[in-house]
C-alpha cells in the first residue's frame, strides 16, 4: 500500500469562549475549524497543506497526531486508525510544531534518551541514532548544554532530531520554517528532502507559496476548513503561478475578490 496517510471526511468543531467570540468578532458559539476534509499522502512524497492563517491546518495535523479527536470522519496513518489505534499511530509518526516545546532545564543529550525511552527504542539503536542525528545537525558540540541556553536555531534543530528518535516512516511538520532564521530554515528544508529520498512520507503545513513550490510533490489547498483543491503541483497550477492559482480558488470559495 502506498497511501501512507488517508484522511476521509474529517470534521472538527470548537466551542468558542466569550473571549474568543470577541476576538474573532462573531456571535457564533461554534467554530467549524475543519469541514469534511479528505486527503491522501503517498509513500516517499512531501505533501503540502497550503492555506491562510486560521484555515484549519494545525487542527488537521493535530487530529492526525491523535492529540485531538475529530467530531466525524476517519483517518488512517500507516494503516492504523487515528480513532481506534492512537498509540500505534503515534508510534509511527514524528510530529513537530513550534508549540511543542522541549523542557528548557534539560540538555538535548538527556532529552534524546528520554524520548527514545518513551518511543521504546532499544538503547543500542538509540545511541547510534543520537550520534548520527546530532552530527548531522551540528548539535554534538552543544549536546550537554541546557536547552534554555541554546540559540533558537539550535533549539529547533534539537527539536527536529528529538521528534524522530524512533526513525518514523511518517513525519508531520506544522509550519516547518516559521520563526526560523534563513540558515536554520535551509537546514530544515534540506533535511526534509533528505528524508523523502530515504522513502519517508512527509506532511507539512504552510502559508508560504515558495516553500510549496520548492519542496512539495503534492499539494492540498485548504480554505476555511475545506479542501478546495488537491493534486500534484503541476495538476493544481497547470504550469501557472501557484500564488495566482491560490487566489483564484480563494475568491471562488470565499466569494470575495482580494
Amino acid at each position, binding site marked *: 500500500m502506498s497511501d501512507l496517510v488517508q484522511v476521509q471526511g474529517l470534521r472538527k468543531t470548537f466551542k468558542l469562549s466569550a473571549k474568543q467570540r470577541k476576538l474573532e468578532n462573531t456571535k457564533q458559539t461554534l467554530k467549524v475549524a475543519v469541514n469534511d476534509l479528505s486527503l491522501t499522502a503517498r509513500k516517499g512524497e512531501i505533501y503540502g497543506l497550503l492555506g491562510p492563517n486560521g484555515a484549519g491546518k494545525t487542527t488537521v495535523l493535530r487530529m492526525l497526531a491523535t492529540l485531538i479527536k475529530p467530531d466525524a470522519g476517519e483517518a488512517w496513518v500507516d494503516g492504523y486508525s487515528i480513532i481506534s489505534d492512537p498509540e500505534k499511530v503515534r508510534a509511527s509518526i514524528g510530529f513537530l510544531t513550534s508549540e511543542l*516545546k522541549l523542557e528548557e532545564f534539560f540538555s538535548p543529550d538527556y532529552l534524546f534518551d528520554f*524520548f527514545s525511552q518513551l518511543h521504546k527504542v532499544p538503547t543500542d539503536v538509540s545511541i547510534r541514532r543520537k550520534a548520527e542525528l546530532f552530527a548531522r545537525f551540528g548539535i554534538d558540540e552543544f549536546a550537554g548544554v541546557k536547552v534554555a541556553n541554546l540559540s533558537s536555531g539550535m533549539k529547533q534543530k534539537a527539536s527536529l532530531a528529538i521528534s524522530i528518535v524512533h526513525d518514523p516512516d511518517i513525519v508531520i511538520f506544522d509550519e516547518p520554517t516559521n520563526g526560523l532564521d534563513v540558515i536554520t530554515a535551509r537546514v530544515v528544508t534540506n533535511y526534509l528532502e533528505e528524508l523523502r529520498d530515504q522513502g519517508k512520507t512527509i506532511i507539512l503545513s504552510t502559508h508560504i507559496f515558495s516553500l510549496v513550490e520548492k519542496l512539495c510533490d503534492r499539494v492540498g489547498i485548504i480554505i476555511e476548513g475545506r479542501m478546495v483543491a488537491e493534486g500534484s503541483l503541476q495538476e493544481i497550477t497547470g504550469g501557472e503561478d501557484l500564488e495566482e492559482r491560490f487566489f483564484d480558488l480563494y475568491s471562488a470559495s470565499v466569494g470575495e475578490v482580494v
Partner: protein
Amino acid sequence: MSTQSGLFAIIGKEFRRFFTDRRIVFTTVLLPGLMIYLIYSVMGNALQDMMVIDEEYQPVLYAVNLPDSLAGAFSSIGIDFEQVEPGRIDAIRADITDKKADLLIVFPADFDERVGRQLSGEQGVDPPRIEIFFNSTRTESAYQYQVMRVLLDQYKTALAPLFAVNAGSDSSMDTGGAGAGSSSGAGEEVDDPASGELPSYDLATQEDAAGFMFASLLPMFIMVFLFSGCMSVAPESIAGEKERGTIATMLVTPLARWELALGKIISLACIALLSGLSSFLGVMLSLPKLIGDATDELVGPVLYVLSDYLLILAVILSTVLLFVGVISLLSAVARTIKEATTYITPLMLVVLMISAMGVFAQGAAENYLFYLIPAYNSVQSMVGVFSFSYNPACILITVGANLAYTGICVAVLTWMFGNEKVVFTK
C-alpha cells in the same frame, strides 16, 4: 522492551529535574525545615517564660475528703495535697480560675466505703464520683490534671484484679473483701498493691502526658507541612509543563496517558514527602524549645515503639499520595501555575480546618466511617497513635481509603491527559 518503560522514564525525568537542580532542592527540601526550626526556636524562646513548668515548682493542690487509701500513694510519689473542708470548695475554685491554685480534687465522704461495698459485690451501690477542678489555660494546672487522671485510672484498673483475687482466694485477701466496715483495713489492702507497682504507674503517667502533648500538637502540623510540600512541587510540574508546552511533546509519543499520570503522582509524592519530612524535622528539633525544657524529658520520642512509627509512616505516605493526587488534578485543570495556586489555596484552608477539627475532637474517633473522610482520617489516626489509643482497623481503613482516593485521582488525571480541552486550552 518492558511495557512499563514509559512509566519509569517519567519518574526518572521528574527525579532528575528535581534532584539535579540545587535551587529547587534547597527551596523545597532544606528551606521549609530550616525556616520552621528558626521560627519555632525564636517563638519557643519567647514562649518559654509562659510555658515552662519550673522543675522546682510546687503545685498548689487541694483535696476534699481525700481517702486514706490514696493519701499514702500520692505522698509517696511527691504529690502533696492540702486537705480542706467542703465549705472552702467555692473559694478554691475561684482561686483556680485566678491561677492562684492549680487543682482541687473532691472525693465523696464515703469513698473508701462505697468502693469497698462495690468490691464485695454488693448490688445497687452508686459508683463514687470524683470531681477534679483545674485550669486548662495554666500549663502547670493542665499538667497536674493529666497526672491525676492517669493515676486515678490506674488505681481503678488495679482494683479489679484485687477483687478477682479476693473472690477466689482464702488468705489475707479475705479481709479486703470483707472489710467493708473497716475503712482502714480496706485502705491498706488497696494501698499495698498500688504502692508496690508505683514505678510502672510513674512510667504510664509520663507516656500518657507525652502522648497528650504529641497528640494535640503534631498531627495538624504534619498535615499542613505535607500539604505545603505537595503544593510546592505539583503545580510546577503539571500546570507548569502545560504552560510551557512541554506536556504536549510527551503526548505525541506512544506513552500511555496512565503512565504519565501515575509516573507524575509517584515521583511528585516522593519529592513532596521529602519536603514534608524536612518540615517535620524542623518541628521535632524545635519542639523542646517550643513547649519548654521542663516537659522536655516527657516528650521523648523514645516512648513510641517501632510499630507506632511504621503506622505513622503508612498514614503519612498515603496522605501525601492523596494530596499530590488532588493537587495534580487542580493543576491539570489550570492553564498556568498562578491559576493552579489560586485553585489550591482554598483547599489548603479546608485541609487546615479539617485537621484542626481532628485535633480538637477529644481523642481518636471510634466510628469507622470517620476514617473514610480524607484528611480527617489521617489526623485522627495520628492522634490515635500519638496518644497510645489507636485501633489498628481504623488506621487500615485510613490508609486504604487514602490509597483508593489516590487511585481515583490517577484515573481522572489519566482521562484529563487524554482530553484535548485540558491539554490545549486556548
